[in-house]
């Protein structure tokens, strides 16, 4: 049993469990699913700086911070107690493409060629962590939600603005992957 759990989980198991978050949050406390809002609550809690966007009762939304805290803890448990000892099984064309860019370490979920503190202080690291992270935080708030709030919660409740947002997420990701990342990866 434990051996089976340690193997990578199939998409339908993961998808079903993630989808069940929607009714869980609604039934347990009338909450709508969304993760990027936690970043806003952190701003409101730590550095509201008299900005109208951050002046609200963030404590009422503290549930969201408990939720993301749980995500970090769950990931810690999975990575330390349930981890899969085998390298990640990548699609062959992806693996070949990344190898052509010098990324070959598939022993873990993230490539060590990028995800290390040494890399942070290179131009590529600056773009991957600082600028990339900034775009994630800025973009999700500007869009009013991320993959959870728009793609999952929004589409589940048939909100058409969420469909537009989801399509734009994909277009942005595709543009970056096909036209900009090939250069960024070789920096």
């Amino acid at each position, binding site marked *: 049993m434990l051996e089976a759990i340690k193997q990578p989980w199939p998409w*339908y*198991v993961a998808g079903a469990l993630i989808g069940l978050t929607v009714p*869980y949050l609604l039934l347990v406390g009338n909450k709508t699913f969304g993760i990027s809002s936690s970043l806003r609550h952190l701003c409101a809690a730590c550095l509201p700086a008299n900005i109208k966007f*951050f002046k609200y009762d963030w404590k009422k939304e503290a549930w969201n911070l408990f939720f993301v805290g*749980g995500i970090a*803890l769950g990931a810690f*448990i999975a990575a330390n107690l349930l981890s899969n000892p085998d390298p990640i099984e990548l699609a062959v064309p992806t693996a070949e493409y990344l190898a052509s860019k010098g990324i070959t370490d598939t022993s873990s979920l993230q490539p060590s060629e990028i995800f290390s503190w040494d890399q942070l202080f290179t131009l590529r690291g600056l773009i991957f962590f600082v600028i990339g992270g900034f775009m994630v935080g800025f973009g999700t708030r500007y869009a009013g939600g991320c993959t959870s709030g*728009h793609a999952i919660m929004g589409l589940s409740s048939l909100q058409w603005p969420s469909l537009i*947002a989801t399509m734009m997420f994909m277009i942005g990701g595709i543009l970056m992957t096909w036209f900009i990342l090939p250069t960024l990866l070789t920096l």
Partner: protein
Amino acid sequence: METASQQTPATADLQQRELDAMCVNESVLKHPWWYNLKYSAWGILFGIVFVKAEIVSWFRIQEMFRFESFHMYGVIGTAVMVGLISVLLIKRTKARTIYGEEIHIPDKTFNKGQVYGALIFGLGWAITGACPGPLFAQIGAGYSVVIVTFISAVAGTWVYGRFREKLPH
């Protein structure tokens, strides 16, 4: 926003919290803090799923945007189907929360942020390999350098709030 001051503080606060945010607490009940552990419990399960289905992996996001694997499309597609059916059932049966409250799902209104902002997020998603949920999971899974990504994301959110009025919506 301009009319917020004319409303009762409670409504004004709800509007402020709602401001283009998908995730809003619709409950009016006040509970002690440990009631929130219900959300941590689900978060733990969620974090385990994120790691075990490799959704937090930069590699999987690359595969998705290169259209070379079905995995992530399967995950998101299934999640939306399960969510959709759940919301339909909740609406049909007029289900209430475990505390007896009526369930309310706020409607989204369209603004240009869902085009520009979403595009910016998409670009960042492909670089970092993480949307906000996986950010927390990557850190929890021990990729400590992602703390920098996370702090940058909080900074991005703050800068958005600071310049919100000047951006096209």
